[in-house]
């Protein structure tokens, strides 16, 4: 038997490019964000023409002064009520989708979501403690605008730290499997604590659940300013490591033999994604599905490299949540449906549709 090394024969495909973000997907992502922004600002109890809304949004740019034909009151609705809400939806959706995608890469687990390491349970317990204590004290505590978000943030980070310490206590380093199991244990423990508290303070159940199911209804520029630094930090750290996540996909041993330090990369990414998740949770409560459905949809449609998944998850995750918020506040107007319920109702069937379509396209 002879084996020869050959040059590329005539007729074979030319050299192709490696995985990376194709311009058409970037354009689609930016377009989705813009559409979500305009829709989020236009639609509501007072319906505003999308064209005029777009002009008013342009007027926010320095040096731009165009006549939208809207009244002062309508402009105030845009800039003080709907715009911060839409922007917060973009930030929170982007953060949750990005954190979900990062966790899926770090743990090489397609079911990983931003709440995998106990962030949701920690935030849930902390908020329940604050609300039940506040109700017990005549509402003074919960009356403070920052108390509940701060409790959610601290609870979320605290739970992730507990998970990390528990995962490391097993000895053989902080392996992904040990961390996931620790996350399950910590979540179960904290959820049990929350259930007990709710059982003892049944008068707080509605208030706690209205937070647990997620909401953007009270969003103002204050919330945007609160989330924005974490959004930037998480986005920069995670996006800078997007190629490393591709290398990590071959396993720790091979990544090490390729010159990487998997533990260090994993630690950095977990810290960044957890901070982003905690910030999102503190601003909007627990909104499920975004962190799983958006990265998977991007993976199915645009490619499996994390160089594609992460930046597009950021864009499409933001657009998805901002649009979902439109549905949440218009579908049963004048009542609002909790946005977490809408993400679950829309996200699940949408994902099944994408899955079926992709399978059909791939034969």
């Amino acid at each position, binding site marked *: *038997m*002879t*084996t*020869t*090394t*050959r*040059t*590329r*024969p005539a007729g*074979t*495909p030319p*050299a*192709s*490019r*490696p*995985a*990376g973000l194709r311009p058409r997907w970037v354009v689609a992502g930016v377009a989705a964000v813009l559409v979500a922004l305009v829709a989020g600002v236009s639609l509501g109890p007072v319906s505003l023409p999308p064209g005029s809304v777009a002009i008013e949004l342009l007027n926010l740019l320095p040096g731009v002064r165009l006549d939208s034909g809207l009244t002062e009151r309508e402009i105030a609705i845009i800039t003080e009520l709907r715009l911060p809400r839409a922007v917060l939806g973009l930030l929170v959706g982007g953060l949750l989708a990005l954190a979900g995608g990062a966790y899926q890469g770090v743990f090489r687990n397609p079911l990983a979501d931003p709440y995998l390491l106990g962030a949701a349970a920690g935030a849930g317990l902390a908020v329940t403690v604050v609300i039940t204590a506040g109700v017990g004290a005549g509402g003074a505590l919960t009356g403070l605008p920052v108390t509940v978000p701060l409790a959610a943030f601290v609870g979320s980070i605290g739970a992730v730290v507990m998970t990390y310490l528990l995962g490391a206590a097993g*000895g*053989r380093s902080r392996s992904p499997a040990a961390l996931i199991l620790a996350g399950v244990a910590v979540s179960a423990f904290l959820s049990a604590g929350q259930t007990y508290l709710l059982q003892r303070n049944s008068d707080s159940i509605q208030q706690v659940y209205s937070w647990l199911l997620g909401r953007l209804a009270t969003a103002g520029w204050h919330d945007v300013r609160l989330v924005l630094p974490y959004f930037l930090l998480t986005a920069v750290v995670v996006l*800078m*490591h997007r*190629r*490393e996540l*591709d*290398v990590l*996909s*071959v*396993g720790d*041993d*091979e990544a*090490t*033999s*390729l*010159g*990487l*330090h998997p533990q260090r990369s994993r630690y950095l990414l977990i810290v960044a994604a957890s901070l982003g998740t905690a910030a999102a949770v503190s601003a909007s409560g627990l909104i499920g599905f975004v962190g799983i459905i958006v990265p998977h949809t991007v*993976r199915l449609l645009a*490619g*499996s*490299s994390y*160089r594609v998944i992460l930046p597009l998850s950021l864009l499409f995750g933001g657009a998805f949540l901002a649009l979902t918020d439109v549905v949440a506040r218009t579908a049963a107007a004048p009542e609002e449906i909790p946005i977490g319920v809408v993400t679950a109702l829309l996200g699940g069937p949408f994902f099944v549709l994408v899955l079926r379509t992709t399978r059909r396209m791939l034969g």
Partner: protein
Amino acid sequence: MTGRPRAADVPTGSGAPAGPGVPAGPGTAAGSGAVAGSGAPAVEVRDLHVRLDGVPILGGVDLTVAAGEWVTVIGPNGAGKSTLLRAVGGLLPAPGAVTLFGTPLQALRRRDRARVVATVAQSPVVPPGMSVLDYVLLGRTPYIPPLGRESAADVAAAHDVLDRLDLAGFHTRELATLSGGERQRVFLARALAQGATLLLLDEPTSALDIGHQQEVLELVDQLRRAHGLTVLATMHDLSIAGEYADRMVLLADGQVAATGTPRDVLTEDLLSHHYRATVKVIEGDHGPLVVPVRR
């Protein structure tokens, strides 16, 4: 399979890790002086002890692999073959026990080490959805700045390796859709794209039929001859291991039980004693052939 030269015929490039004809990129191990080279053995292991979870796996292993040589480690299950390869590849702590091309392993930074030694694991993970080109490009990681991306030279290097391994038409294919033999060639291509001159192959043919085993091993041998690679492999198929190795090392219970040419190591006495197997050793055209016989 005729006329395969032994190590003495192999152009070794005096042991300096120049890479298998792949553009290594700026700051390569050879160029940066990351390893000593110049006549030093490719691998030198002295008194290597490894314990995993408190269990002793290797107890004082000594091993020398000359540059350009093909050494195959054999031994029964649990003898410590894969552990030895992992220690040489820097995947297990082995302070002071392993030297690569004259440089202590722990003195090499991870990226420098990855430019010197490439590993093909026994069952490499196949990332879902990853194309052949993207997988091979992972081999360029030691040359890509931290948090950076592949340069045009890296892409060209990956295509060059794909060409050499007759995989040019596969670059857009999804890795998971390839046959076992094709996949094994891609794993090898990823290792070669690292531009390292020391290849560690852990059971490289365990999942292949006999035809693909020959194909892959011939390919490795051809690349070794053409580019002065050093090969340290573990294998279970003793006959085929003896066909390709210049020297063999028999590991048993974490220690070197025998070392030498295939004729020295593949003897009925040694194999029946350490494998607890009944075998006949027949003299073949290119070395001893081991045939299990019913007790």
